[in-house]
């Protein structure tokens, strides 16, 4: 409200000012302040302050909150953050976390009671937690002493550590008085939240920016920067304008805008794996995709290499199953080389003319970026060449979700999708999109893949308690996907951030959902 009165007085004064001289403009913020569009792009979530409700936006949240564990900066292994170490029992059902000596921003010590409190909140859907479903396997959370947290599971879960990285520790002393079902609506989140991270929440100017100040008592050392500012932008284009005008020092950038920065010494382009595999999803409930030959024809018809080289500027890896990481892809997968003649022949053998012929097929997508529009145009043209007539239809996310997650969808509206699915850092992430048990309403297997081999392979991989055998199991998943083609897998693209070259020791990676990963914000600095 304070801001509002200030605004209205500003209005009145502004009117008076029109006749008098304009005073000197204020100098831009001081050098020890780093401003960025930390919530721009697919990994961001502007306006959300509640880590329990966060489906993304962890890059920013983890500058003032911290989880027990997080990925390292390469997103390869899970390391301790608020937990100095952790152990997993041999039966994969007991996780023991040893907690570090840390203090909340208000000076209170962080203890295992806080950790237990947070885990209980995260498990409770009433608190508005989006993690509740993923923590269903947790049977008990105990705090035997101040520095130890023990999490027990009903059954081994390969994805528990991944989920735990998203559980940001919350202070029991500040939140325990608020009933769980009122928690999400409490203003604490955006006015006076406290965490244990290197920066402290300072203020939020509604829908414009969030400001943090250095937590000088941070256990990892006093942060170099004094302030960290997260500016909100309606879209990446606006953030790029601000970056080029020198108002912010960092933002996510769509790949087709990267060339503007490539040869510019004032900026550094950060490239990273998106961990999202893009695919053409065949709706297996539609009769037209029944024959494997037709699905193979789609793969051979699309010149993925040309699209990657020209539209993605080379910054994507062809995917022949859901994975592209070397250790997960077996040597003998079919590369489905671009071969329109072979595609035509396969279609003929399958009798495409009778199955569908040149009737238009809706290719549904929720990707609305200019790059995606170009990709869809290319895919449309390439499929048309072999006699498959697709009509791209880009819709907004709610429309897309309401169509594909509907338990009884209208197949004529939804025959094929151009979509993406997170495939890492935990390779088990793809299970929900492909396992037969995950067909809506049970789960988000939106393509309705009913492939017993694939389901068996996925179940085997997820249930594998022997860590050394997991890679092998996922290779099997890859192999089945590659031969049975539940999707027409396309590629895994890179994503980009651009940072001013004045910023030193900056760590960022385009992690799915924004992380969390170890970014060490306390080390970031700004040269003159």
């Amino acid at each position, binding site marked *: 409200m304070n801001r509002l009165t200030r605004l209205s007085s500003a209005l009145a004064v502004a009117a008076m000012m029109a006749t008098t001289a304009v005073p000197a403009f204020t100098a831009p913020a001081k050098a020890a302040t780093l401003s960025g569009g930390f919530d721009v792009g697919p990994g961001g979530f502007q306006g959300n302050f509640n880590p329990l409700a966060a489906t993304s936006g962890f890059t920013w949240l983890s500058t003032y909150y911290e989880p027990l564990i997080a990925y390292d900066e390469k997103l390869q292994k899970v390391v301790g953050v608020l937990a100095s170490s952790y152990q997993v029992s041999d039966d994969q059902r007991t996780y023991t976390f040893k907690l570090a000596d840390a203090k909340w921003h208000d000076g209170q010590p962080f203890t295992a009671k806080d950790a237990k409190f947070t885990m209980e909140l995260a498990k409770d859907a009433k608190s508005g937690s989006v993690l509740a479903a993923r923590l269903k396997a947790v049977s008990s959370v105990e705090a035997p002493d101040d520095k130890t947290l023990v999490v027990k599971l009903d059954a081994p879960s390969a994805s528990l550590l991944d989920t735990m990285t998203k559980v940001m520790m919350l202070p029991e002393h500040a939140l325990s008085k608020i009933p769980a079902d009122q928690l999400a609506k409490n203003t604490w989140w955006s006015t006076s939240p406290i965490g244990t991270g290197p920066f402290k929440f300072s203020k939020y100017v509604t829908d414009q920016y969030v400001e943090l100040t250095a937590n000088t008592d941070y256990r990892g050392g006093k942060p170099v920067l004094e302030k960290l500012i997260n500016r909100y932008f309606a879209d990446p284009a606006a953030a790029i304008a601000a970056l080029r005008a020198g108002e912010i020092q960092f933002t996510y950038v769509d790949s087709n805008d990267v060339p503007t920065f490539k040869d510019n010494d004032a900026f550094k382009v950060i490239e990273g794996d998106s961990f999202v595999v893009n695919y053409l999803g065949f709706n297996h409930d539609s009769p037209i995709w029944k024959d494997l030959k037709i699905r193979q024809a789609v793969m051979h018809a699309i010149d993925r290499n040309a699209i990657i080289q020209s539209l993605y500027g080379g910054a994507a890896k062809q995917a022949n199953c859901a994975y592209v990481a070397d250790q997960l892809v077996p040597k003998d997968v079919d590369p489905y080389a671009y071969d329109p003649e072979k595609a035509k022949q396969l279609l003929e053998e399958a009798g495409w003319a009778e199955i569908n012929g040149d009737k238009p097929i809706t290719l549904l997508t929720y990707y609305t970026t200019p790059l995606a529009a170009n990709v869809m145009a290319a895919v449309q043209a390439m499929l048309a060449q072999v006699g498959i007539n697709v009509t791209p239809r880009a819709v907004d996310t709610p429309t897309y979700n309401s169509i594909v997650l509907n338990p009884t969808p209208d197949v004529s509206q939804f025959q094929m999708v151009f979509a993406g699915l997170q495939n890492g850092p935990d390779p088990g992430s793809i299970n929900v999109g492909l396992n037969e048990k995950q067909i809506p309403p049970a789960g988000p297997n939106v393509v309705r893949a009913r492939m017993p081999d694939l389901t068996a392979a996925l179940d085997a991989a997820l249930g594998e308690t022997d860590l050394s055998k997991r890679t092998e199991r996922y290779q099997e998943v890859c192999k089945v996907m590659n031969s049975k083609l539940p999707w027409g897998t396309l590629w895994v693209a890179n994503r980009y951030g651009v940072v001013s070259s004045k910023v030193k020791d900056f760590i960022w990676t385009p992690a*799915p959902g924004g992380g969390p990963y170890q970014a060490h914000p306390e080390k970031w600095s700004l040269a003159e």
Partner: protein
Amino acid sequence: MLSFTFRRLLIGSGMLLALSLLIFILLRLTPGDPIDAYIDPNVPMSPSDLAQLRIQLGLDQPLPFQYLAWLKEAVTGNLGYSIKRFDQPVLDLVLSRIGPTVLLMGSAIVIAVVAGIAIGVVSAVRRNSVLDISFSVFALAGISSPAFLSALIGLYIFSVRFNWMPSGGMLTPGAEFSIGDLLHHLILPASLLAIAQAALITRYMRASLLEVLNQDYVRTARAKGVYEFWVITKHALRNALLPVVTLIGSTIGLAIGGAIFIESVFNWPGMGLLLVDAVETRDYPVIMGATLVIGACVIVVNLLTDITYAVIDPRIKVG
């Protein structure tokens, strides 16, 4: 006058009620709901978990119940909470956006009115001169180009290329509040926004003044030997302003809804941007609340326009 105002306000409240019902129905016709919008398809959740969230938000209730529940709270002034931003009350969210929007639109209207009337008068007085024709062409070009295109070009030239103006936003983040900073952020979007309105006002002003200048009383005044300057400012202008006031009134009413294009290009934290975002994320309570607040503003502004009309032209009696 009082009873007139009272009656109009009464009709206005009925209108608001009907408006809220209309927008409620329209919103439920949009594909997908707030929960569908909440989920990133790349990191999907199962429909059964989503159903859980819907129950939490009361979205599983029958529609008439949902509307009545909303209405019951709304009449007491509680417009509920945003769905996308759980912890933010709709009223605060909407009110915090009105300030910036009124500031932007107000400045644009002031620029447009001053420029529009001045150019209109000059064009009418110097009819068919080179000046008049070039203004006319400029005005028409202003009306004929899409607002977002001039905004994008303006942004590129003044901010990205030459760095004279900030690229967007309303205040420099982290800096102390100052009027200079605010004006610096305001001037570019407000001027760009004013172009189309100024063009419209110019044309109305010119046409209306030309008509008035042909009236008998103007001729009489001239015949009496009144200076041309006074003929125009005192006799003609006042009467010529009438249709222009109506025009300005109708623009103000619309203005509170925000200028989506300028706001989205300049990242101005106004109503338009809030609404674009709220519709994209199907944030029902925000859209309902914003509709009510803007609707109320439009009704009040229309009423004020009518009253202003009566003040400028004594022949008009309200009631």
